[in-house]
Every structure is written in structure tokens, then in C-alpha cells.
């Protein structure tokens, strides 16, 4: 009997630096499986963000560039425009993409740049140590919101998939989650679809993934999954916000 489950070839065999219970590992795996299945590893370039996933290139056996905070979509634009034959993806967190990198992601999406963005939304800054993000929930505690996010002073959390879904330029924009096995299966399908749109040269593709951060939430991995399901999913509704087929 052959192996039923093994490490995707696009992932390296390395000790992870991600915290116990962090969902980055799941999403890394889904991206790597997709790249293997599409047979595109030899022409793929990933772009690492600033944040916990800055070291993503330690786990992917792929060409990689490392961006400054928030600038990954501009770098991806540079690569994809001069080498349209390459498959380019950015992998960004919510501080990186929804705060400092808001300008870059909106304009790359609006130009219809034909690359893929994987956006990890765990409602907090991870690597810098649990500061408030634009995606932090009302009342959610963070080191820079010690009594909980005050929406009078900081506004409501930004819903990136909703925002990008409003752009008129054709794109694939979806929000998925990796809190339950069914969600993970759906997220995999969405990520694969996102890369397929790129391989076909059709449009910009964006997969928001509702994730966890047990360390900075101060919860156990299991409690984090439950907290995210109860608090994030009602606000960050899952589903497709835009597909190129409808345009």
C-alpha cells in the first residue's frame, strides 16, 4: 500500500518557528499542495511579508523574495509584469496587508495584476507581539489596546475581502477559514482556484484566510479555534466576494 499522506514536495523538511496551534502551517501546506498539483513549482516565485511569515521561505522549496512591510503586492507587480510566465504569489498577514500595505494591495488588485495573494487574518499583529491590527475585533485586547479595541478611537475592523470585492476590475476574491476540517477542505479548493486563475492568466486572485494566534490571544490552541469561530466568523463571513466568471 502506498503512502496515503505525505509532505508536499514544495515544502521543505524544516523545524517550524511558528507557535504551537498557529494555523500558518496549515495554510503553508495548502499552498504547497496546490503548487505540487498544478506542477508549477519550477516557475513559481513567492513573496514573503514582514510579520510571522517573513520566514515562510524557510518552509517552501520555491524561489522567494522578501518584501518590506506591506509592499509585497508592489514587488509581485514588478515580477509579474516583467516575467508574465512566472507564477507569483504573496503571503501576507493582516498588519502587513490591511494596515501598512493597504495602498499596495488595493492598487494591485484594481490594476488586475495577475498574481495571487494569500491573506492571513488573525485579527492581531503576531511577530511584533500582539499589537492591535486594523482587523482586531471591537473590545478585543491587544498590547496597544490593553482594555480592548475602542471603536470610537480606532474604527471598526476592516473586512478586506469585502473591500476588494467592491472593486470593478474582474478578480477572484474569497474569504475562507482553517478552524475546522471542512473549512480547511474548502480553503484548499479556493487556494487552488486562485492559482488556477493565475495560471490561466485571467485575473488577480485573493484568498483571505481567517486564522488564529493562540500566543497573542492568550488562549490555548483549542480555545483559539473556538474563539475565532464564535467571534471572527460572524463578522468575517466566509464565501466568495467576487469571481471573474460573473463579470
Amino acid at each position, binding site marked *: 500500500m502506498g503512502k496515503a499522506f505525505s509532505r508536499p514536495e514544495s515544502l521543505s523538511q524544516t523545524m517550524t518557528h511558528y507557535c504551537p496551534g498557529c494555523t500558518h502551517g496549515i495554510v503553508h501546506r495548502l499552498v504547497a499542495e496546490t503548487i505540487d498539483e498544478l506542477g508549477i513549482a519550477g516557475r513559481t516565485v513567492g513573496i514573503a511579508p514582514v510579520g510571522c511569515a517573513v520566514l515562510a521561505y524557510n518552509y517552501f522549496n520555491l524561489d522567494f523574495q522578501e518584501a518590506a512591510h506591506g509592499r509585497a503586492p508592489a514587488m509581485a507587480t514588478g515580477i509579474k509584469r516583467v516575467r508574465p510566465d512566472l507564477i507569483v504569489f504573496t503571503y501576507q498577514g493582516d498588519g502587513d496587508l490591511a494596515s501598512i500595505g493597504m495602498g499596495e494591495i488595493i*492598487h494591485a488588485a484594481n490594476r488586475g495584476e495577475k498574481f495571487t495573494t494569500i491573506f492571513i487574518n488573525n485579527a492581531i499583529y503576531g511577530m511584533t507581539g500582539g499589537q492591535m491590527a486594523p482587523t482586531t475585533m471591537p473590545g478585543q485586547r491587544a498590547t496597544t489596546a490593553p482594555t480592548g479595541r475602542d471603536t470610537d478611537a480606532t474604527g471598526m475592523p476592516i473586512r478586506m475581502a469585502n473591500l476588494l470585492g467592491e472593486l470593478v476590475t474582474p478578480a477572484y476574491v474569497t474569504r475562507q477559514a482553517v478552524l475546522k476540517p471542512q473549512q480547511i477542505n474548502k480553503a484548499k479548493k479556493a487556494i487552488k482556484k486562485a492559482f488556477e486563475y493565475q495560471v490561466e492568466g485571467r485575473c488577480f486572485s485573493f484568498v483571505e484566510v481567517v486564522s488564529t494566534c493562540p500566543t497573542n490571544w492568550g488562549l490555548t490552541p483549542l480555545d483559539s479555534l473556538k474563539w475565532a469561530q464564535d467571534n471572527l466568523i460572524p463578522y468575517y463571513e466566509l464565501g466568495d466576494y467576487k469571481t471573474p466568471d460573473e463579470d
Partner: protein
Amino acid sequence: MAKVLMKGNEAIGEAAIRAGCKNYFAYPITPQSEVAEYLVKRLPEEGGVFVQGESEVAVGYMIFGAAGCGERVMTTSSSPGVSLMSEAISYIAAAQCPAVFVNIVRGGPGLGGILPSQGDYFQATKGGGHGDYRLLVMAPDGVQEAVEMTMKAFTLAEKYRNPVMILGDGLIGQMMEPCEFPDDLKTEATNKDDWATNGMDYRKSDKRNLVKSLFLDPTELNNNNLILKAKYDKMRKEEVRYEEYNTQTDYQVLIVSYGTMSRVCRTSIDLLKKDGIEVAMLRPQTLFPFPEEAIYNAATKENCKSVISIEMSMGQMVEDVERSVKGQREVEFYGECGGDIPSPEKIIEIIKGLL
């Protein structure tokens, strides 16, 4: 080939194409928007790429991405725009990618003005962005030299895997002069397979490449900085360029001036000669590396009494001139930087005051 009459900004765009650069990303800013307006028409004819970015910040990273996957790439901007690009420039230098940045300098600080200035000397030669990096900086004194320096910039950027900056000014960008595009300055792009993220299939390798600037281990970071320093030391040895004017005479004053300002100084030197006053000029063509030794030698010539740095700034290059002269002569300074270029008569008055 025959000479053509071209505006500096357009000639810089054409020079990039002639040098084999087919990729241009930019954001509009006066006084250099004509480069983009020229290239948006020319690049499609060459099968090239033109992208107007949403900001100079983004453009900096478009350049980084394109350079990181091994393609020749250029952007042009002016002072406030270059401030915004400086973040990316630091990353590009750290990650050792070749790229060409053109700064058609306007008056500053702040929004400043749109007229010519040399107020970005410090930014270009001493940093601008964070960390221990340098740019190879070339300063043309007219359209022809802007063409030649732009064409050479791609070869130099690849030789050193480091960003190269052309430091012009609003006058050089806006004026028309006859120019030609020397065929021998067109070079083949170097093979970048050993480091660029150009795709494993493309370079027929199963070893992936990584373009990055993060070195969390202090020894690794120090080593990366030592690699950069070794390149800058090599530039100091191999890339210093300058032009001497009237140095064969027994001059009493040595002017150090570059770019547009040096052209005015040349006229002043010619006029002073008619009055029997000999003044020489050393014009740095590279601002980094700086022609320290040549300035020292010219300054310490027997009859040379003083040295003056004349700039369209409030005194920036003068610090490098002082450093070069090593206290052997008095180093004076004259500068204006509102956008009006000092006249030859004004320079003559300043020089006579030194005699």
C-alpha cells in the same frame, strides 16, 4: 549615428532602451514626468513594460521585484519622490539587486519647488534610506552625458549588484541639447542564474534562489554588511570619474563643482582667463565614489591658494571636498538653492573675493 536634438528627460528614456532596459516603472512628478510620457509610447514599440505605480513607495518595490527576478529595470523621479523610494533602495542594496534610479533633482526640503537644485547630494551619496549602504552616483552636466551615464548605469549596476543613481537636476531634464546614443555603451545583461528568482525551470536548476535582506543572526548580518562594504571599496578603486578644466595652468583657485552648476563655473573660468586670472575646476562625474585623491592633488598644486565648492545647495558636497583636501588649503563654499542658477558674473565676483 547622427546627433538628434532631444529634451534631457526624453533622452534619458531613450538611453535606457538603447542600453537594453525594457522595463520602466514610475510615478509622475515635476520636473521629470516627460520620461514616463516618452517611454509609455516607446516601450510598447520595443516589447517592453511600462507601469505607472500608485506611489513612489510602490514603484520602489516594483523595481525591487523586477530586479530580483533578474531583469534590467529603471525608474525616474524627483526629490520628494526619491525620498519615498529610499525605503526600497535600502532593501534593494541590502538584497544586492541591480537597478537604476534617476533623480531629476528639484528644490527642497519639503515640497520645495520645481526648479533645478543640487539639494539631494547628501540623500544620494550618504544614504537616504536606512542602514549601511551606498549608491554608485553619477552626475551628468548635460543631455549627452545624461545619455551616456544612463547607458553605463545598467552595466555598473550589474557589475556590483547594487542600485546606481543618476543625479541630474531640473535643468538637465528640461533643456534640449543635441545628443547621440553610442552603440558601444549597449551591453548584454549578465547571467543572474546564481541568485535571481527567475524560476528554477528557467535556469534549469533544482536549487531555489532567495532574494532577501533579513539576517536575524548577528554574524550573518555583519557578514552581509562586509560583502556590501567590499563592493563599495571596489567602487572607490575602480569607478571614480571626474573631469579637469584649466588645470594645466598656474591657477590660484580651484573650483569643485558638478552638474549644471559646473557649466556656469566653466563660463566664469573662461571670462576670468580673459582678465588674466587663472582658475581651475575639478568636476566630479561620480559623486560616490568621490574623486578624493584627484581633488587633493589639484588643491595642493603649488600656486593654488584656495579651494571653493560651488553648489546649488546650502553646502553639501563641500563636506566631501574638505575631507579630500585634508586641511592643506582653505575650503570655501558658495551656493544658492532656490531654483535660480547662480550667474557666471556672480561666480566671478565670488572668485575675485578669494584672490
